[in-house]
C-alpha cells in the first residue's frame, strides 16, 4: 500500500518538528503582541500592528532574504547569536522553524487578539477583588478564557508552517535532513524531469497532514468549549 520512502519520512518528520517548534516558540511572543494590540493604547501601535502583518503582504522570499541578512552568520544579529550562544539559525532546522514562525505570526496574533478582546474584563476585575495579582489573573482567568482562540491561532500557525516554502528555502536553503521540509522536498522533486510521481505522493502526504491537523483542532476546540461550559 502506501509506504513512505526514507526521504519522505525524513521530510515529514522534519516538517512536523519545524512546525511544532515554530508554533511553540512563537506562542509567548504572540500572546504578548496580542496583549499589546488588544489591551494597550500607545504611540506607535499602528506601527507594531503593521509590522506584525508585514509577512502577510510581503512575498515569502523577501522575508527569507531579510532573515538571511539579519540572522545569517554574517548578519548583525546572527553574528551576535553565534558568538554569544553558539547558535546558528541559518541553514539549520531551527532557522526553518524561525522562518515558518515569522510567516505564520500574523495569523496567530490575529486569532489571539480576537479572543483576548472577547474576554470579559469584569471577570478579571472580580479575580482582583478575590486577591489575585495582575499576573495571577492573567494566568488563571484571562489565559483559560482565551484558550479557544489560542488553540485556533496555534493550529492556524501550525498549518501555515507546514506549507511554508519561500522564506524557508531562501533563509535556510534546501538541505536534506536538516532543512528540507515537505514543501522543499516537493520543490526538489518538481525540479527533476521524472519527479512527478514522487511529487504527487508528497502532495498527498501534505493533504493528509492538513486534514489530520484540522480534525485534531476541531476535536480540541469542541472539548475546550465543553470545558468552558458554553
Amino acid at each position, binding site marked *: 500500500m502506501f509506504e513512505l520512502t526514507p526521504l519522505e519520512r525524513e521530510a515529514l518528520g522534519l516538517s512536523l518538528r519545524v512546525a511544532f517548534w515554530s508554533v511553540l516558540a512563537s506562542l509567548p511572543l504572540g500572546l504578548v503582541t496580542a496583549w499589546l494590540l488588544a489591551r494597550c493604547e500607545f504611540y506607535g501601535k499602528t506601527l507594531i500592528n503593521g509590522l506584525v502583518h508585514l509577512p502577510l503582504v510581503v512575498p515569502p522570499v523577501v522575508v527569507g532574504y531579510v532573515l538571511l541578512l539579519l540572522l545569517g552568520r554574517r548578519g548583525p544579529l546572527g553574528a551576535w547569536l553565534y558568538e554569544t550562544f553558539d547558535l546558528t539559525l541559518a541553514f539549520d532546522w531551527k532557522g526553518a522553524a524561525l522562518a515558518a514562525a515569522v510567516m505564520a505570526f500574523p495569523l496567530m496574533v490575529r486569532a489571539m487578539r480576537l479572543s483576548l478582546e472577547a474576554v*470579559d474584563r*469584569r*471577570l478579571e*476585575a*472580580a*479575580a*482582583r*477583588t*478575590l*486577591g*489575585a*495579582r495582575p499576573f*495571577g489573573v492573567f494566568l*488563571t*482567568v484571562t489565559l*483559560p*478564557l482565551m*484558550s479557544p482562540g489560542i488553540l485556533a491561532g496555534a493550529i492556524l500557525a501550525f498549518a501555515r508552517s507546514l506549507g511554508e516554502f519561500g522564506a524557508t528555502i531562501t533563509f535556510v536553503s534546501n538541505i536534506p535532513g536538516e532543512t528540507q521540509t515537505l514543501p522543499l522536498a516537493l520543490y526538489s522533486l518538481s525540479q527533476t524531469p521524472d519527479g512527478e510521481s514522487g511529487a504527487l505522493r508528497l502532495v498527498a502526504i501534505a493533504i493528509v497532514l492538513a486534514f489530520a491537523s484540522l480534525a485534531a483542532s476541531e476535536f480540541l476546540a469542541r472539548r475546550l468549549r465543553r*470545558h*468552558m*461550559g*458554553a
Partner: protein
Amino acid sequence: MINILAGLVKPDSGRIAVAGKLLFDSSRSIDLTPERRRIGYVFQEGRLFPHLNVRGNLIYGLQRVPRDERRIELEQVVRLLGLDPFLHRRPSDLSGGEKQRVALGRALLANPHLMLMDEPLAALDQPRKEEVMPFIERLRDELTIPIVYVSHAMDEVVRLADTLVLLSEGRTVAVGPLDELTSRLDLRPLTGRYEAGAVIDATVVRQDQAFALSELAFSGGILQVPHIDLPPGSQLRVRLRARDIALALERPENTSILNVFSGVIRDMSDEPGAQVDVLLDVGGTALWARVTARSRHDLNLRIGSRVYALVKAVAIDRHTLGRTSGRRFLANKEIY
C-alpha cells in the same frame, strides 16, 4: 461608587479606610490595589468564572489567603449557603439564584475584612430573590464581617440593614440608623412613598399555637403577627408600612383587626393630594400611618391628638420581618 471602594475605579480625590486600614488617600498618594484591600465583592451579575466549576470558583479567593489568616473555610461556606448539591457543576448549569449563592460564597472565602454587595438580587426574579435572601441574612447573622449592601429596593434594605446611607445623584443625603431614616418625613421622596413606614424593634414573647400567631413585645405594646419560627426572647425587627395602618378615635370593637395601639400624633405630612402620612408616638415607638386627607378632616386629626393605630396582623408578612443583627449591616439605597 462601590467600584471605588473595591479599588477597581480610581477616584479623583478622597480617602478610603476600612477597619482602621487606609486603602486610599489622594493627599498621601496611597492607593492599595484591589487584591490587597481584602474586600469581598458580590457583583450584580455574579461574575462567576465560567471555566471553573463551583468548587474552583469558591476556592479561588481562599487559595490566595495565607493559611494562618483563614477564618472562613470551604466546608463552613458550603454548609451556610447550601452549595453541596452543585459543587462540581459549572456555572452555566446553575440557576440565577444558585449562581448568586456561589458568588456570595466565593467572596466570603477570600476572608475579606468587609463585604460589598452591589445589588446582588437585582438580576433575579422574585422567587429567586426569595431563595437567596435568607442566605444573605444568615451571612449577616452568623459571621462577623461588616457588609455594605447597595440596592435600589427598599424592601431588601429594610430586611437586611442596620445603618442606612442614602445616596442621591452621587451625593450622600443622609446617614443613620435604618429606623430613624425611614421615619424621617423629609427623606420620604428618597425612601419611597409606597414603601414608606417605620421599623420597630421587638422581642418574641409568646407563641400562640392554636391560632398560629406570635406575640411580639415593643415599647408600645404587644404586636400579634402570623407565626414566626423563633424562640421567645429573640430580637427582631418589624417594618410596619404606613399604608397598612389605619387610625381611629375610639377603640373599634368586633373587627378582625387584632393590633390596636393607643398613641399621640407627633407630625403630619403636608403634601397636596389625597394622602396624609401621620407620625405617631406609641409608647415611645414611632409609627407611620397613611390616611386620606378626607379622614384627617372628618376625624379632625391634629398634632397632639390621641388616636388608635389599627394594624392588621396579616399585613405583617415575611417581606417585612428581619432579625436584628447588632448594627453590623450597612446598606445604601441609591436613587437616581
